[in-house]
Each structure stands twice: as C-alpha cells, then as structure tokens.
C-alpha cells in the first residue's frame, strides 16, 4: 500500500534534526540537571522510530546500516567496562572520577568517566527500543 505522505516526510526531515539536537542536549545536561543517558537515548530512539514510520524500513536501513542488537550490546559492553576500569586502579567496582580540562574553543570543561557510562546506557536504550519496534513491524 502506497500512501502519499509528502507533508509528513517534509516535516520529519526537518523535525528529526531538532529531536536529535534535543537528544544530545539532554544527554549532556544529565550530569548536573535532569537528563542523562537513558532519557537522551529514548529521545534519540524516538527520532529513529519517526524515520522508520514516515519512510519505509528499507530506505532507513540503507541510510543507517547498523544491526541495532549489536548497538545495544556495544552500549552494555561499554557501560560494564567502565565499571571494570575502576578495578584497574584498585577502586571499588563502578567508581567514577572527573577532572577539569582547558580545552580549546570550549574553555574550562568538566570531563567525567560517567559520560562514557551514560553513552553506553544511551546506546543500549536506542538499540533495544529500535529492535523491539522493528521486530514487531517486520513480522506483520
């Protein structure tokens, strides 16, 4: 069944960028204010699902050729490994640390290992949500 959804597609092309920006903002904001990897990941997944809904699956697949199960696994692996990282320094499992760096352009920036952990969480959420949606959709 072909439906003519020009308006949806035109809007989605624009809106997806806004949603992705929001996702990145939420992800980075998570350290001190509400936000974080889980919510950022959910918003990111929402953008992807919107793409899958408005364009067909094959088109989006060819544009984003990831196996989302592996994305989820990669995320989980990253998160668990940050936990193991602290073992190398003789700290309790999952210990995190942070420091301030003077980066060009950004100025004085706080960099933390939690961000890596949160990036893993975000990847898990994206991978899992998209996998669930796709595995139900493809079957129908």
């Amino acid at each position, binding site marked *: 069944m072909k439906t003519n959804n020009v308006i949806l597609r035109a809007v989605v092309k624009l809106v997806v960028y806004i949603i992705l920006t929001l996702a990145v903002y939420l992800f980075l904001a998570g350290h001190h204010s509400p936000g974080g990897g889980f919510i950022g990941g959910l918003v990111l997944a929402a953008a992807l699902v919107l793409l899958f809904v408005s364009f067909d699956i094959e088109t989006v697949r060819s544009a984003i050729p990831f196996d989302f*199960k*592996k994305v*989820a*696994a990669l995320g*989980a*692996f990253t998160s*668990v490994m940050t*936990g*193991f990282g*602290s*073992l190398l320094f003789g*700290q*309790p*499992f*999952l*210990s*995190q640390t942070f420091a301030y760096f003077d980066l060009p352009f950004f100025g004085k920036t706080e960099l933390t290992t939690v961000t890596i952990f949160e990036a893993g969480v975000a990847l898990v959420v994206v991978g899992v949500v998209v996998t669930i949606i796709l595995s139900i959709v493809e079957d129908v």
Partner: protein
Amino acid sequence: MNNLVVLPMVIPVLAGILFVFFRYQITLQRWISFIVMVGNIGIAAYLLYLNQIEGIQRIDFSGWKPPFGISFVADSFSLILVLITSLVAAICLVYAFSSIGEEREKMYFYSFVNFLVAGVNGSFLTGDLFNLYVCFEIMLLASYVLIALGGEKAQLRESIKYVLINVLSSWFFLVAIAYLYGSVGTLSMAHISERIAEVGQTPLLTVISIVFLTVFALKAGLLLYFWLPGSYSIAPTAVAALFGALLTKVGIYAMFRVFTLFFYHDHSITHTFITVLAALTLIGGSIGAVAYKDIRLIVTYNVVIAVGFILVGLAVATPEALEGSIYYLMHDMIVKALLFLIAGTMIAVTGTTRIDEMSGLIRNYPLLGWMFFIVMLSLAGIPPLSGFIGKVLVGQGAIEAESYILLALAFISSIFVLYSLLRVFLQCFWGETIISSEDEVPMKKGWIIPCAILTIATIVLGLGAEIIFPYVSDAANTLLNPSDYIDAVLTQD
C-alpha cells in the same frame, strides 16, 4: 572492600553481552560460557575460604558507603549458594551442548543462560533490598526468554502464564519494598535490620513481612505452586534442570534472608505462617508427586516437596534446623538438576513422557538406571548420600522446637518422594524391555557425563559432610546472629 565479590554477577553479564557479537560462533560461546561458570566456582570457593579468615566480605559500588550506596555482601550462606549455582549451571551447560539444538543456540541461548546465572548470583550476593528486586528481574527476564525459546505451541502457551504470574508477584515485591521504605526509610538490608531492631517489630511491619512472605512464596512455590508444574515441565531438559535447581531456590534464599535478618522479632505470627505454608506445601506436593503418570510432572512436584522441606527448617528456626536447611538446600540444587536431567534423558530415548509407556530401560541403559536409583535414595535421605544429613538435622531441630506435626509431615513426605520415584524406577527401568537393541537411541556422552558428575557430587556431598560442615555451620550462625551481618556492612573501612 573486595572487588572479587561482584565478579560472580558481572562476568556472566559480560559474557552474555559478548555473545551478541559472536552469534554464529557456537563453539566459542559454549567454551566461554563453560569457562565463566568454572571460573565462578573458583571465585566462590576462594571467597568462602577468605570468609573463614577475614569475616564477611563486602564491596560498595562506586565507593558509596552503606547505608547510602548499594553494596554486595558475601557471607557464607550466599557464597555456598553461589558455589553450588555455578557448579549446577556448568553441568547443565554441558548437557545443553548436546541436547539443546543449533536453532536455539543461534538465538542467543547461551547469552540468556549467562544472564540467568548473573541474576541468580546477584540475588544471592546483594546487600540492598531494591537491588534484590532488580536481580530477581534480571533472572526472571532471562527465564521468560529461555522458557519461550524455540516457540513451540505448548511452550508459548505456558510461558504466557509463567510471565504473567511472575509480573504479578514482582508487583507485590515492589509494593512491599515501597511500604518498608515508607516505614523504616532505608533500603540497605543491614540498615533495615538495625532500624527494625530499634523501633521493634510493630504490627505494621509484621503485615509488611507477610506481603514479603507472599511474594517469595510465589517465587519459591511455597503453597502458591500452582504455576510451577506447567511451566517447568514444558521447557527443554537443560533449561528445566536449571529452573528446577536454581529459580525456586532464589525465592527460598530471599525468604531465609528476610525472616532471619529483618523480621525475626515476632516468631509467633510470621513463623506460624511459614509453618502452616510449609506443612500445606508438603501435603500438596506429596499428593501431586504420586498422582501423575507424566514423568515431568512427577519430577516438578518433587521440587515442591523439597521447598516445603527446606522451609520446615526456617519455620522452627533452631540452629540445627537452619544448618539442616542450608545443607538440604545445597543437596537439593544438585540432586534436582540431576533428576531433571535424567528424566529428560529418559524422555529423549523413549520419545514419551508417560511412565506407563516406558519399561525395561535398565537393559538398554544400565548406567542411567543405576544413577536414577542413587538419586532416588539420595532424595529419600538414605545414608551416606547427601539427603541424609540435611534431613537428620532438620528433624533434630524440629524435635528440639517440639513441633512434632511438622516433623511427622516432613518425614512422611520423604516416604512419598521415595514412593513416587520408586514407582518411576520400577515402571520404567524394571520390567519387560520394550526397546529392541536395533532401534535403541544411542546414549550420547554429552548426556551421561553431566549426570555422572552430578551423581558423584551428591555422593561427595554426603561422604564429605565432615569437611563441608564448618562452612554450613558458619552460614547458619550468621543467619542466627544478624548483628554479625550488620557489623560487617555498617562498619566503615
């Protein structure tokens, strides 16, 4: 602080994640899973040894000190269970290698087995009540997948019921945690215990304890076992063995923990409840075990009887009875896995599940037959096999506590166990041989070796009781003296 404590949970998780990348390298997955389980045995054994020297081990995640952070606490009771879990999981994996089939192996079977073991180990080790809920859920989610994996009609049908009943019991768990948090304002298990000891076990707290009892009774199959026979008998043999050996035991562990660490002040109410539930479970399980002709159902009702028996120890709560329960718990994990594996092998070689359609298997498979005989004796509690010591200690405890009805029920149930399995033995292994040597299904090495290892384990557990006993007695001692546990967790180091 000892980072080793977290490994029995995290290493299986890591292995499970890695298998997603190596979906089609089945041999690699098999070996890694097996090595992980064997590694866990080593870690648990080392920690158990360390426990005797340095006392209870603990790790605070991210260095957040209890009661604010989440910690893993490894006392002897937890470690004994982790040790046996890893052993049973390793052996069930070996059985799965030759029986589970490539279809399932490619659908991340080994990932989910690893997640299941991670959840079980996490539940045993965690020192935080909410973390216990999370570990329960990890274990249950893995079990949902394992029970439905394969997608046969009967599997899907039973798995829906299994999932729904567990969702409901998890909801009760969450509600109980919410109420407990509302009344004592903390979730660290040691801190809860301390707070309850300070304010005394008020009627409100007793009611909350009954909610917890309901939750764990559903998970362990204590009286509320109506869901258990259907779902455990439908899964593939190796999975059924894992479930039968591990899942109900986690519920039992949680019950032991909660009713010796938190709610031990008002025995007259809480422990009366447990007594009644244990007695009814023994009766119901015994009736079920002799009522059916389907070997899978007979075996699952034997799980129910064992749950009742172990809870007798908690109900009377004397030192001997607790030691007996812990010992019987170890014995039961090994023997139930073995029983499920043997029953599954019998079904695999005969192609039927009904015992009246099997006969004379001992001529075709003598080793299998005699192993079944040993299991039967072990479950019935014949010395020197492992069931004996547990039963004697629980019995001794029951006599001390003067609960003779419970004692009588516990030992009558042993007779029912013996009768139900003897019936299987006489019906299936004795009698006229129906399988001629031409169409005999060849016994695979991968089936008989895991069974043999477990049979040896039950004999060793019985004969080596002298060596194992100090650890069991230490575990019971920690359960009876909550202050040991509290001191180990709440002292800052």
